[in-house]
């Protein structure tokens, strides 16, 4: 071991500890350096979840499929909700794919800091790693759900066109939205445990505010801009377009959604970093 070089390396302090911190200091460098930690935390979440459940990964199938069946019965058979010219089941499933991911990510990351209180109060690492890992973990389920969707597309003989290759972009937008929301929720939850109670309700409201069970085209023109402030509206529209070849999304709407998620994410990160300093004292 080369311990002799240890101190020669560090002319400048490795770490400076002081109370005040710059407003825009997101410290993305140390976050980048700890990507392995993010990976391990996400991997732990996936692994532990499947070890603790009896039928493991099957939940990733059952949940969206049952929801799809319910939606088909309620909205298509009983209420005749339009579905942009594609069979309703797959119309719903293409939206449930990002939505199931989104609601899982929020549901788990919202309480992630509180659930990891043991870590937060004992070890230092960039705190952002915890909600980020919690948001990334459900991507495993996403892949499983995507495979189901592929099977359904084969059944309905839907062949995606070139827009399919834009799908990663919408997935990225979906992950960013989930992350933005979870930065707020997880940081708030440290202080106010009420957040944990609010999250399921919030997700329910959010789902009806997103075109999961219905097409965005039913929203009256003058409300569209406001509607698009919900980034999930853009994400779901994008998924349907990329996978099912429905009408091309309104790019102004998509722009509004994109800007909304960027602002939410940026401000969320600042809020998180500002409150992060007291996590260990409060949690």
């Amino acid at each position: 071991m080369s311990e002799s070089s240890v101190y020669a390396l560090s002319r400048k302090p490795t770490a400076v500890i002081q109370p005040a911190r710059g407003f825009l200091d997101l410290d993305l460098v140390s976050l980048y350096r700890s990507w392995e930690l993010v990976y391990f935390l996400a991997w732990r979440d996936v692994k532990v979840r499947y070890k603790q459940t009896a039928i493991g990964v099957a939940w990733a199938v059952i949940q969206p499929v049952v929801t799809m069946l319910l939606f088909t019965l309620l909205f298509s058979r009983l209420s005749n909700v339009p579905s942009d010219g594609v069979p309703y089941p797959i119309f719903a499933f293409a939206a449930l794919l990002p939505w199931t991911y989104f609601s899982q990510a929020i549901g788990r990351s919202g309480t992630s800091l509180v659930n990891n209180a043991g870590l937060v109060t004992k070890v230092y690492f960039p705190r952002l790693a915890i909600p980020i890992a919690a948001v990334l973990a459900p991507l495993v389920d996403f892949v499983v759900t995507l495979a189901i969707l592929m099977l359904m597309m084969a059944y309905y003989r839907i062949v995606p066109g070139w827009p399919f290759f834009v799908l990663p972009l919408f997935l990225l937008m979906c992950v960013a939205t989930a992350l933005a929301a979870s930065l707020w929720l997880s940081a708030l939850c440290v202080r106010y445990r009420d957040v944990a109670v609010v999250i399921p309700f919030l997700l329910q409201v959010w789902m009806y505010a997103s075109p999961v069970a219905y097409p965005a085209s039913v929203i009256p023109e003058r409300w569209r801009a406001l509607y698009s402030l919900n980034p999930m509206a853009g994400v779901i529209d994008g998924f349907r377009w990329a996978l099912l070849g429905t009408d091309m999304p309104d790019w102004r709407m998509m722009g509004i959604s994109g800007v909304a998620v960027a602002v939410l994410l940026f401000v969320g990160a600042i809020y998180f970093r500002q409150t992060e300093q007291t996590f260990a004292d409060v949690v």
Partner: protein
Amino acid sequence: MQDVAIRVDGLSKRYEIGALQQRHDTLRDHIVAGVRGLVRRPGRHAAASTEFWALKDVSLEVGPGEVLGLIGRNGAGKSTLLKVLSRITVPTTGRAEIYGRLGSLLEVGTGFNPELSGRENVYLNGAIMGMRWKEIDRKFDEIVEFAGIGPFIDTPVKRYSSGMYVRLAFAVAAHLEPEILIVDEVLAVGDAMFQKKCLGKMGDVARQGRTVLFVSHNMAAIQNLCTTGIVLADGRIVFRGSAVDASEHYLSSVTSRNFGLADLAAHPGRTNDSTPIVRSIGLLSPDGQSRYTDHIAAGDDLVFEITYDTGDLVLDNAVLGVQSSLGERVFTVGARYSPDFTWRMRGKGTLRCRVPNVPIAAGEYNVMVAMGSRLQRRDFDTVEHALTFRVESSDFFGTGESLLPGQGYFAVRSEWRNVEVADPVDTLAGA
């Protein structure tokens, strides 16, 4: 070469203790509120809150290779200082600079997940502590060997014994190879063999020229392991010097040294999470008369009298721990180890504990007293250094000889015989 490993400049840390919940109907509420008070969000009850400075204007330089012992009674600020230095919590004012990678053993096994196997936990725990993946790969075999859990490495940790669990956790931490190592009383865990291993590892770290901050209540460990020491009291540094001087300063100043009878209503040795239950402890003269004494002779009975007020709590256990003046536990007696102690304590009362014919060597000892509930598996009140007493030499062996200082804590009788004599000397003819 850098001539400093840690530089601390005017560091202070303030907690605000919420004073909102003043109405406590049960003792449980008191405890809950007491704990909550420490973690209350700063500023929430600004109008009705009291400030508590866990650290007050602490300045300190630690050189590379220095093995510094942090000494102080509970609540003196040791843990807060370590938490600030390991960046877990942010100071209120002041500044600290850390030169080099800092590894902290504030609590080993942080982030261990019971569902995962030993192998998986090593990787997870290593990553949490700041190790790179490749680094863990490289040290993996060494870690498993150090922990001594061999074939169980792929078993879920929840099936481990607590000893195995701790050993694996410590092994990961011990292989972090930080330039600065922070150790907080982890040596209290594990069996004796393993503790020795840990001390050895810490010694290695120190010999490699790396810096160690070591917190312990065991002055013998501080004196053995550390080169220098600081004594903290009420969030300030009150002494800085060699490890031996610092531990002696602590023992003479912080130990309250009550002889005979000690009033424990407001005692500095009461631990943070305790509720005052034990009101006094006294050492009774072994001759059966109700008078207090400050000493016994080696081999006499130790008779302690404890008065208590449990309030509404129902307790069924009391423990006395006798410690040497260096803070090492010599022996422990407890009501739970006494076959005929089956009743419960509630409200006010007095306990008497007789330890017959205590064979301890001459010297000064102090007593830790705790009361708790076996049912709830916790101590509600613990007071360290509650009472001090002396053991005077006596003719314990009936030979006129007594043990010399440094020959151990116990006077143990022994029988010696010549069973094979090579060159017999006639003792009578010897003159």
